[in-house]
């Protein structure tokens, strides 16, 4: 079986935070305690929407020490394939759902002398748990959080109220922006930077830090990609000896699972590398969208990450 172990949970609270973001609380259906986790971990939520099962990763944002309940925050994506819309429109308090054990692909470097968090929009969620973890152990941290407006600044008020000295909020609509070069300048040796937000923000932070002479190991980032819809395509799976169709609204990974072909995964968002699959033959173009393979591997035509990447063309034969 692929992915982390599963936990049966019940939705115990749903709180709309603003017009885009809603928070969900889960408790174990059997009444037991949930596993503890480390700040930055995510869970994969299974959404049974009629015949379709979607599995989306969401950062756990509750206190890692609290084993009674997990919280996630879901941003509605009207353009997406429907996972977030399902959560927003179809999930009700009392519903039973299945989530995965926590998996952490964005963990704190506990050696850091200081943790510097940079969040963009919904990218605030992993930091909510990390901040609770660091506060418990009296660690040094600072948050710089950019959001579109006061109305859309999920948790900005709460963070500012609890941690006025550490929290810095920037509102786009007030023309406020993180002065990154200045911020990076003068940070004590041993500082680690963590960035979670849109791809443009992650690239900006990584590139700026590199130019300022920061070591690669001191920059941590996470961006989960939701699989994007695209044109349907056909794939031949060599090991299982099957030809399958990937629909417009499903990912290649989901299509394989639908056909009973087991491919390993953890994040389903192009980050963990588990579903990396060898390409045996192809005629056409890859639409690579993952963070896992590097540019040379994308160009080589030898590998694909089926969780988020697609294909357009005549023939695609995979080693599955």
């Amino acid at each position, binding site marked *: 079986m692929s992915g982390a172990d599963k936990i049966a949970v019940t939705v115990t609270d749903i709180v709309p935070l603003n017009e885009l973001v809603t928070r969900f609380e889960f408790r174990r259906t059997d009444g037991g305690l949930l596993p503890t986790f480390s700040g930055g971990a995510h869970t994969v939520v299974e959404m049974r929407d009629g015949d379709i099962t979607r599995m989306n990763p969401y950062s756990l944002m509750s206190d890692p020490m609290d084993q009674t309940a997990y919280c996630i925050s879901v941003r509605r994506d009207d353009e997406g394939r429907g996972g977030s819309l399902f959560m927003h429109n179809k999930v009700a308090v009392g519903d039973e759902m299945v989530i995965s054990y926590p998996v952490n692909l964005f963990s704190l470097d506990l*050696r*850091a*002398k200081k943790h510097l968090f940079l969040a963009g929009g919904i990218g605030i969620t992993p930091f909510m748990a990390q901040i609770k973890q660091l506060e418990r152990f009296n660690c040094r941290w600072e948050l710089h959080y950019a959001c579109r407006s006061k109305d859309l600044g999920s948790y900005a008020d709460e963070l500012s109220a609890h941690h006025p000295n550490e929290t810095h909020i920037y509102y786009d609509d007030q023309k406020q922006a993180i002065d990154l070069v200045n911020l*990076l*300048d*003068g*940070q*004590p*040796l*041993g*500082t680690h930077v963590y960035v979670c937000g849109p791809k443009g923000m992650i690239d900006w932070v990584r590139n700026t830090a590199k*130019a*300022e*002479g*920061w*070591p*690669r*190991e*001191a920059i941590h980032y996470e961006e989960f990609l939701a699989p994007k819809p695209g044109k349907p395509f056909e794939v031949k799976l060599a090991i299982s000896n099957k030809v399958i169709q990937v629909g417009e609204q499903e990912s290649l990974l989901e299509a394989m699972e639908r056909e009973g072909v087991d491919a390993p995964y953890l994040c389903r968002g192009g980050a963990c590398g588990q579903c990396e699959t060898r390409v045996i033959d192809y005629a056409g173009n890859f639409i690579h969208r993952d963070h896992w393979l590097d540019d040379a591997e994308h160009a080589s035509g030898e590998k694909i990450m089926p969780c988020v990447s697609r294909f357009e063309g005549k023939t695609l034969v995979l080693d599955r």
Partner: protein
Amino acid sequence: MSKFTFPKSITSRPVYGTLEPREGSAHLMIADAEGAEAILDVATPEMMAKAHIIYIPKGEDFEDRLRALKPASFYAGPSYAAAQPRLHKFLADAKMGLQVYLAGTEGLIGQAQSAAMAAGIPHTAIQTEHRGSVARRMQCVHCKGITEDVETDPFVCSHCGLNLFVRDHYSRRLAAYQAVCIDAEDPGNVPEPKGIYE
């Protein structure tokens, strides 16, 4: 020429490169003996404006040439141990963006690297270039004592007196190679010492 090509070895054995200028908020350059040559090779006036040099001459005559580079600060001291308090103060005050360049013997490079790592710089971000003596800094695995500047294999532990053979297994934390008793299974049967790379 003070450069030596080390034979290919196991993955824990350090591999040295050639110093190159990097972007950074400040530059810390530490060298001993002929390591000065590597600093002279990499130095640019732009870099020197933000560079701090710690140099252990060990009888070599490079001090004036290093001073002439006009670094932001320059220190020449009699030994690494003597330079250590100054180095620790520098690292405690340092900011992210600091670039570290180490050149000279393995003992000097290893000890300075260990100090920089403890201050929060990953070892992969620290540049090193070997110059000069190929003697090794060895830790006796039995008594834990460090013997500096070991040139032969086997050698006698300067602390406990055991006959030790020289391994390529290296600890960055200790800045030392591992030395293990050579005649444990046949006491007294100690081969004639020869140069480590002979």
